């Protein structure tokens, strides 16, 4: 148990150790790649260096976490609670996985510009600030650092027009979202005179929400709604996921989502804990719309990447159900589901990155027909991922959904729970055909490119992720405990003032 005084330079430095380490490391890697950016070896070097940086930062984050580092008095600017540590850890894991998946992918696609990896690191720094922001300005800065880096990553395949389209689309929509978010911040500041999440929460507590902060809340929800791709702010997601390099799509589906959901939960629970009558109906509406639209439109997709894009919209809906609960259990459920979804999605995009043929954009259901015969390992792994996304017992996806169901049912809201499970049934209609194609259909005459094989680093990532999906599915106790504990820390951060 370490207590830090964030008012002193030493305290704030210590509190930001993981972020500072990663920033320094990122600049170092930038220096290295400005020298060496020609060959495949250079690219690999940058990749492994960046991976090491993520590991170092992760070590710092875990050190903070395991020492139960907290703030003396009120945490300003940056949170010091389990919620930040857990969300940042998931984001860092997602970054590590993305880097390892990209190693072979970039070489195969001839994207040999090693600046890719510092961009991943920059985006991760943004995510960590977003997940830990205790102040609306920090939140905005984190969001922008993350988004700008990801815009570039989305368009990284310069020669591919779809990649450029993805980057442009993401950038334009993202700029809009940032605008909404800034307006929201301005209105909240105008109403409370502070940008601190908990101080603003203390100002707003105890009386019905006035029009100005209510508008601010709505605009914040819209801004973050774009980032989590909740319906109706989801239009960009399918095209962007589809056009981006596959590991980047995976990064967007996991890391970006983790950070944005962590920020959303924190804002709602720390600044607006007493305004549930306003935001709960909105969040419920977004959740229902996302679950319905995401799942139903995913049914119609032929390309696996687009299917996963729409399914990520659906999963954003499930996560919003957990956000809706507005309780420590709900906050814990958000984190646990993000972990479950992150592990599974990262592995799924990893498999897709492997299966994609060089230069071609889409892997369709027909392309993977008969895969079980030629690539049994890949088929088994991808099947387990699909079952986990479906929320089937024995996988971590089920544990995540089960926790969300618990969180909403404990709030006497069975309606959202029923919508959640019924739309999950719909999702069987597009996850199962993946398994069906691989196991039950004959291989097409035009077989996959013979050279498709898992490069060792990617094999390691997907193997670890798939094993984790199964192990946590059967032995969820540790993550359940962690989720419950971190969920409670969020309210403890908010509590000291909200009660006044």
């Amino acid at each position, binding site marked *: 148990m370490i207590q830090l005084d964030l008012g002193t330079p030493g305290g704030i430095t210590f509190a930001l150790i993981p972020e500072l380490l990663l920033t320094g490391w990122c600049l170092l890697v930038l220096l290295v790649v400005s020298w060496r950016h020609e060959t495949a070896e250079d690219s690999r070097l940058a990749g492994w260096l960046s991976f090491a940086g993520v590991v170092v930062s992760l070590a710092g984050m875990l050190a903070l976490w395991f020492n139960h580092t907290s703030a003396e008095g009120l945490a300003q600017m940056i949170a010091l609670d389990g919620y930040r540590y857990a969300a940042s850890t998931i984001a860092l894991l997602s970054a590590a996985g993305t880097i390892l998946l990209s190693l072979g992918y970039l070489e195969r696609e001839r994207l040999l510009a090693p600046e890719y990896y510092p961009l991943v690191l920059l985006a991760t720094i943004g995510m960590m600030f977003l997940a830990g922001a205790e102040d609306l300005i920090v939140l905005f800065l984190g969001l922008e650092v993350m988004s700008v880096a990801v815009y570039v990553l989305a368009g990284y395949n310069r020669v591919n027009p779809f990649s450029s389209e993805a980057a442009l689309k993401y950038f334009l929509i993202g700029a809009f979202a940032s605008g909404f978010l800034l307006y929201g911040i301005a209105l909240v500041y105008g109403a409370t005179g502070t940008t601190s999440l908990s101080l603003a929460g203390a100002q707003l507590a105890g009386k019905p929400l006035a029009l100005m902060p209510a508008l601010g809340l709505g605009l914040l929800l819209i801004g973050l709604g774009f980032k989590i791709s909740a319906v109706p702010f989801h239009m960009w997601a399918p095209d962007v996921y589809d056009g981006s390099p596959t590991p980047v799509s995976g990064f967007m589906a996991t890391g970006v989502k983790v950070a944005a959901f962590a920020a959303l939960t924190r804002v709602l629970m720390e600044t607006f804990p007493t305004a549930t009558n306003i935001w709960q109906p909105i969040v419920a509406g977004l959740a229902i719309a996302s679950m319905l639209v995401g799942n139903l439109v995913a049914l119609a997709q032929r390309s696996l990447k687009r299917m996963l894009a729409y399914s990520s919209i659906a999963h954003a809906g499930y996560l919003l159900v957990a956000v809706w609960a507005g309780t420590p259990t709900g906050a814990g459920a958000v984190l646990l589901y993000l972990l479950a979804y992150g592990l599974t999605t990262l592995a799924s995009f990893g498999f897709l990155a492997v299966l994609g043929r060089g230069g071609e954009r889409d892997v369709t259901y027909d392309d993977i027909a008969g895969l079980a015969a030629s690539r049994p390992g890949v088929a088994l792994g991808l099947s387990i991922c699909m*079952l986990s996304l479906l929320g*089937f*017992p*024995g996988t971590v996806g089920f544990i995540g959904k*089960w926790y969300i*169901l*618990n969180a909403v*049912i*404990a709030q006497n809201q*069975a309606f959202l*729970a*029923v919508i959640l*499970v*019924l739309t*999950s*049934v719909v999702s*069987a*209609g597009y996850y*199962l*055909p993946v398994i*069906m194609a691989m*196991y*039950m*259909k004959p291989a097409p005459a035009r077989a996959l490119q013979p050279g498709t094989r898992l490069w060792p680093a990617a094999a390691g990532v997907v193997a670890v992720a798939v094993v984790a999906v199964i192990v946590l599915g059967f032995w*969820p*106790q540790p993550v*359940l*405990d962690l989720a*419950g504990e971190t969920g409670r820390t969020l309210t403890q951060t908010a509590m000291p003032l909200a009660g006044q």
Partner: protein
Amino acid sequence: MTAFLHSIAYGSWILHALVLLPLIGVVPVLLGPEATAKRTALVITTLEFLLSVGLWWALDPGFGTLQLISDSPWIPAWGISYRVGLDGISLVMVLLTTALMPLSVLASWRYITQRERGFYALMLTLLTGMVGVFIALDLFVFYIFFEVMLIPMYFIIGIWGGANRLYAAIKFFIYTMAGSLLMLVAIIVLVWKVSAVTGTISFAYEHLLRNAAGVGSVAPWLFAAFAIAFAIKVPIFPFHTWLPDAHVEAPTAGSVLLASVMLKIGTYGFLRFAVPFFPHVALSPAVSTLMVTLAVVGIVYGALVAMVQPDVKKLVAYSSVSHLGFVMLGIWAGTLQSVQGALMIMISHGFSTGALFLLIGMLYERRHTRLIADYGGIARVVPVFSLILTVVSLSSIGLPGLNGFVGEFLVLLGSFGAYPWATGIATTGVIFAAAYLLWALQRIIFNPLDHAENKSLTDLTPRELAVMAPLLVGILWLGLYPGPVLRRMEPASQRYLQLVGSPATRTTEAARPVAEARP
């Protein structure tokens, strides 16, 4: 025997062994060579059956309570533990499952020629799931077994099935999953509502059973969720449309296990969970009328549709809808005879319909057609096959002296007092059954031998006889001397009636919280 079992502490490990043995068996099946997969699977399923036989003596027949309970914490923070145990009802279902499994493996000997390792590994996983469902005493564990069973069956239908297998597999999966996810919501709601009353979060069956009355006004919704999940599984009309597709497309072993065991999980669910949890809803006049009506509609509708099927496998599939209607009628009539009869049908339907699917599979392996019109007069070519088919068909019809009669007679006898009209209509189902099966029999094994291909059919091989012999013994034994089985189930049935406070025992309402099961 009891002393011997006691000396090896049989009761303390047997339930874990039954769940784990098939899972462990998956390893040698997958790692061994393709050619020995079926032998390994046969050895493991036979061993499983031999192990399970001891349960017959391990269970104290004097008590209707749950016995051999074993409880190990799994997710203590959420009140979830791996809790298993069984009573007379679970006992016979477990024995039915383990007995049919080696026969199903043996029946797949020549039928499955591709990816044998995968097939037998899935069969063993399925066995774990089916046994687990019948012994689970924690609702979380039950739900997991209930769902996990789906995957092997989905693959068995989807990979080794007939021409239309993909459609059948996904339909089967989505139907079952829709029901079970609603049940999951109901389980969680039940646990939270009960914890609001008792202060403890626990998924343990007995805990929920004792306090389920505290859920208050949501009870009808919870019952509806449970009932839909199980109704799809049974299947009760109008949730039955997945059944003909799945049964027809599945390979023989899949059809046998679907019909003989997996359908019973639905009726077992009603007896174990849906009705005892919410007896005031389940046995209220409105719900009773609805369920009895659906049961009777199922009986008559299933029989009538079976009558016009050109495909003999589809005929048997629809006959299952009809037979399971009798089970539902028996459960809702709520007398000792009717419940005992329902259980008896669950067992004997497992034997008769399983045997029918096996015989159809044997015929299909020879002629590669299941159309009744393609056969005729084959009694002259394959006399042993025809004799067995006749006996099995008669048992399915419910001829006195064979197993089918006992259950249906008890159900009709026990239900007449409560629902005379419904029982009267249900009786016609027996007559229709005679009509569709005898008519099919006539067209297949009698009539002129007018298809040249049928003249060269070969009769049953020793392997096939070895598959059918135990089933025939079971059919005759249950028909002539059902006493031991009925006696074994009776205390559990009585306890069930006590729990639900049926008309016969409603005066004992005060005694509803039946004493906790003995350890």
